[in-house]
């Protein structure tokens, strides 16, 4: 019995409206978001990342933008690198810029923005020579709290698994884990695990698809050579089974389903198709997922004139657009005719060539061979 027959009315899957998504991403990069996106103004950098990553995954960056445009974007991103008392990192936009000394309390670097900046620059093939590595190391060190978690910015009250993932990703990109305390970070990750089998954003929170991805990716990014005593970072067989189970049951099995929900008893949403789908891939269980049903749902979330929605009715946005494509990519990579040029690495959330670029520019002994 083929999986396609499971959802009988969806014999023909919709195509990916690649051209529309490309022009939508380019439009946002060139003109910004409409007024309805005002509340994202402080987060411009990460919105830009989702647009760039969309172009990257669709293999369209070269053709859709000029060299001078790319240079402009690279410069804009570098203009958000700020140095100060907390080391160096990136902020989300110049919206908080002041005449005061750089990276004051008003204008700190953000961990999520720093992560997005590095990936964006790699997608744009920036030589990364302007990166203040020393400052970045200092910033990472300062960002970590005693309980092992990482703060959104140095004076922030927010510290959850999203920041842990960003910190671990940055260390992976730099191939330098010297500025963080891995064992305490791992302890924090494990303290976010719930009896459902997933991981909440913080201890005591319900299991959530996004933070489950952050937890699993972080645990698997820890370099095996890292010299810390104590139990392995990875899951026990029982935990592995339990997490797999929770993730798989997040997939909506109704007639109009196929997508993944983000928490127990919530509704399907395109972004969780990535958070949960990629999590299953990290656990080595992607082949157990009903990828066809997932794809059917996501393709129906597309807006014909560009962008992908979280469901079939809301407005599309860059975040859901990229993550929907990423989910399609991850869950189709082992099929005979994957619709994407290159597979995404589920831990780095970047395509292989972008990952290679980062390694070549930032690792001490860069990988010269093609990635495995």
């Amino acid at each position, binding site marked *: 019995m083929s999986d396609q027959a499971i959802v009988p009315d969806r014999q023909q899957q919709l195509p990916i409206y690649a051209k529309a998504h490309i022009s939508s991403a380019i439009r946002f990069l060139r003109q910004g978001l409409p007024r309805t996106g*005002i509340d994202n103004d402080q987060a411009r950098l990460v919105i830009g990342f989702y647009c760039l990553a969309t172009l990257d995954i669709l293999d369209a960056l070269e053709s859709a933008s000029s060299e001078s445009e790319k240079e402009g974007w690279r410069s804009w991103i570098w203009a958000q690198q700020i140095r100060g008392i907390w080391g160096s990192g990136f902020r989300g936009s110049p919206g908080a810029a002041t*005449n005061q000394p750089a990276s004051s309390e008003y204008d700190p670097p953000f961990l999520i923005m720093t992560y997005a900046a590095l990936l964006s620059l790699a997608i744009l093939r920036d030589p990364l020579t302007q990166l203040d590595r020393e400052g970045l190391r200092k910033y990472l060190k300062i960002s970590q709290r005693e309980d092992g978690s990482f703060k959104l910015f140095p004076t922030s*009250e927010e510290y959850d698994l999203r920041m842990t993932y960003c910190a671990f990703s940055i260390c992976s990109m730099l191939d330098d884990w010297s500025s963080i305390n891995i064992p305490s970070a791992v302890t924090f990750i494990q303290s976010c695990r719930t009896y459902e089998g997933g991981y909440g954003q913080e201890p005591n*929170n319900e299991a959530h698809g996004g933070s489950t991805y952050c937890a699993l990716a972080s645990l698997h990014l820890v370099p095996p050579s890292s010299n810390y005593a104590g139990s392995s970072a990875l899951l026990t067989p029982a935990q592995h089974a339990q997490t797999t189970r929770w993730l798989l049951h997040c997939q909506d099995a109704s007639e109009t389903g196929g997508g993944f929900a983000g928490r*127990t*008893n919530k509704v399907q949403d395109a972004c969780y198709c990535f958070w949960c789908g990629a999590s299953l891939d990290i656990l080595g269980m992607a082949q157990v997922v*009903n990828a066809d049903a997932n794809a059917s749902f996501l393709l129906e979330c597309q807006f014909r004139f560009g962008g992908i929605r979280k469901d079939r009715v809301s407005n599309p946005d860059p975040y859901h657009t990229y993550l929907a494509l990423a989910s399609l990519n991850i869950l189709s990579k082992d099929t005979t005719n994957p619709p994407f040029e290159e597979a995404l690495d589920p831990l780095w959330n970047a395509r292989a060539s972008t990952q290679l670029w980062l390694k070549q520019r930032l690792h001490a002994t860069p990988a010269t061979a093609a990635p495995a």
Partner: protein
Amino acid sequence: HGIKRTKVDAAAIAARREKEKEKLRAYLESEKEILDLKEANEWSEAALQLTEQFLNTNPEHYTIWNYRRDIFTKLVFVSWTPEDAYQRLVLDLRFTTSALKRYPKVYWIWNHRRWCLENTPSGPGTEPDSKGEEGIDGWEMAVWSQEVLLVEKMLSLDERNFHAWDYRRYILSHCPPSLRRSDADELAYTTRRIEKNHSNFSAWHQRSLVYTSLWKEDPSQRAPALDQEFELVKNALWMAPDDQSGWLYHRWLVGSGDDVTILEKEIGVIEELLEVEPESRWTLDTLVYYKRLLMKHRSEQGKRQLVEECRRSLETLCRIDPMRRRRYEDIGKRILEAYSYNVAYNIQGATL
């Protein structure tokens, strides 16, 4: 006729675009005005007003929240009377209440409330201190008790808003001691929410947190509580066997399956339910899971029996829940492999 309509539409579109542009212009102008004031170290009530208007439009502008708090720190708490400062904080709490109604998931708003609570000055009223002199926590008591009410209101509007649940946990652990809820009270609260709606997973989750901390403090409480909880969740499972919340809670109660009495009893309870609902996905799925746990307590023959039962259940599951067919096939394979390995090497209690 057609031409006129097109003209009107074009004019309407142009008018809308102009309006949008104007709104954007006004927004950017307002942002600049406020940031310029901040630059100039202007700590004034007028500036406070401006930030309030702005934050109503864009509550995600963290810099302007910061500026607002700085005005409090550098003006209100310094130059105003404690009474006036308190009243101003109360106004801020009211302001964030209406902001939260429109933006219930914006971190900055929740954070600002926390900040207001933590910076409430001491004020007259309530309990006299040990010397019999007038109490000094009247204002704190007022704001904190308001918070408990507010967060419960938020939760009745959206029972799954984890920001609100988080905030509730924060309130209950940081409020003045006389306002703290006992664990019994908290359990009663979750019972009410669960009775109102069995699929309120967040309420079940909160319940598990209360018990976890209770049992950590006093492990002897666990056994009697379990009896009661199994009864409670059994009701939920019978009323709504298709709802995942009760099943997950049940699994949590059963735990690792080391207590074979509990395991056998609960398998019995669930098999009863299965007789009434033979094609219930959660029921079958849970049974397979518990029977796998039971295998470690069984002899060779008992194991064989359980393997066969699981195989049949998994077959049904493949049919009624085809979305996860491959998962059930995978489980079936693993059970068989572990069982064969068991038999071949005569190993007791191997993990399946």
